[in-house]
């Protein structure tokens, strides 16, 4: 009885997967060992039978129906791609738009006169302070 290593070496030999040195070793074994030859022959025969009788199958649909389904999938994938592209383009706009809207909101909020609120313009004309006692809020707007 052969060891696992020998059997797998015999298989690797049959499959031409051994380097020259291992190949020579296996050939020496095959020359003097009938059992090793039988295993190698068996492996070779099974492989040959399977390769030469590869199972075949036919698409169980008509040419037109099979293609129409592929076409539909291609159209869906391409449509999905376009939708994805426009979505990411909208996201890119939002990336810039969101901070701009935030700044605009602060400016509107600052500029809006509110009861109980006092605004102070500093000597530096680009700096504005807004303070609301009612809201407990102070905003420094520096341009």
């Amino acid at each position: 009885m052969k060891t696992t290593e020998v059997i797998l070496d015999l298989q690797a030999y049959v499959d031409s997967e051994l380097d020259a040195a291992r190949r020579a070793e296996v050939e020496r074994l095959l020359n003097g060992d009938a059992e090793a030859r039988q295993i190698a022959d068996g492996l070779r025969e099974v492989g040959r039978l399977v390769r030469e009788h590869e199972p075949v199958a036919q698409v169980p649909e008509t040419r037109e129906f099979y293609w129409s389904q592929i076409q539909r999938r291609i159209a869906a994938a391409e449509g999905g791609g376009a939708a994805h592209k426009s979505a990411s383009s909208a996201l890119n706009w939002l990336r810039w738009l969101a901070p701009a809207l935030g700044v605009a909101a602060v400016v509107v909020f600052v500029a809006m006169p509110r009861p109980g609120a006092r605004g102070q313009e500093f000597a530096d004309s680009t700096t504005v302070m807004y303070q609301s006692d009612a809201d407990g809020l102070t905003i420094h707007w520096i341009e």
Partner: protein
Amino acid sequence: MNQALKPDYPSAPDERLVAWAKAGDAEAFEELVHRHRDKIYARAMIMMRNEEEAMDLSQEAWVKGWQRLVQFQGESSLATWMTRIVINLCLDQLRRHKRMRAESIEEMQEESGGVERHLPVVMVNPTERLEKEELRRRIDDALGKLTEAHRTVVILHEFEGLEYKEIAKRVGISIGTVMSRLFYARRRLAGLLQSLKRERSQ
């Protein structure tokens, strides 16, 4: 397109159809699908053993083929390239189903009785007692009796002609596991074909 100038798709070689399809000609691509659809479907069928999944995956392969056609440089035939795509889809599907159990050599030895058990001697002469088509059908049946893990390795080795290291990479297992799975698969097939021989000679 002017009908008079319409290319003669059925008589054009694959290379020409591929060039047209790359330029966006869907009719040229449809002709390629028609020519090779059975081979691609058969590969999906032999791997999945399920008609519905084979249909779905073979169609998905053609969709991917269309989308990636610009990457196809013609190093192999289109059919070979498409077969690779459908096999990758099948492997992904099998992984998703968690059907591909991560069998270690030890686990497989337990269930199969060890590598050392002798390989049944198989010497079937198809011209002697069996019609070629009958033998093909029986080999298909025998492949269907293997585990998916074993069958996958046999398909990649015997039909795709992949080396051990390439199979290991594609399936995500070690070369040692490829070797042992291949051996167990062959031994099982040998056993199944041996019983076929016995059955025939009775």
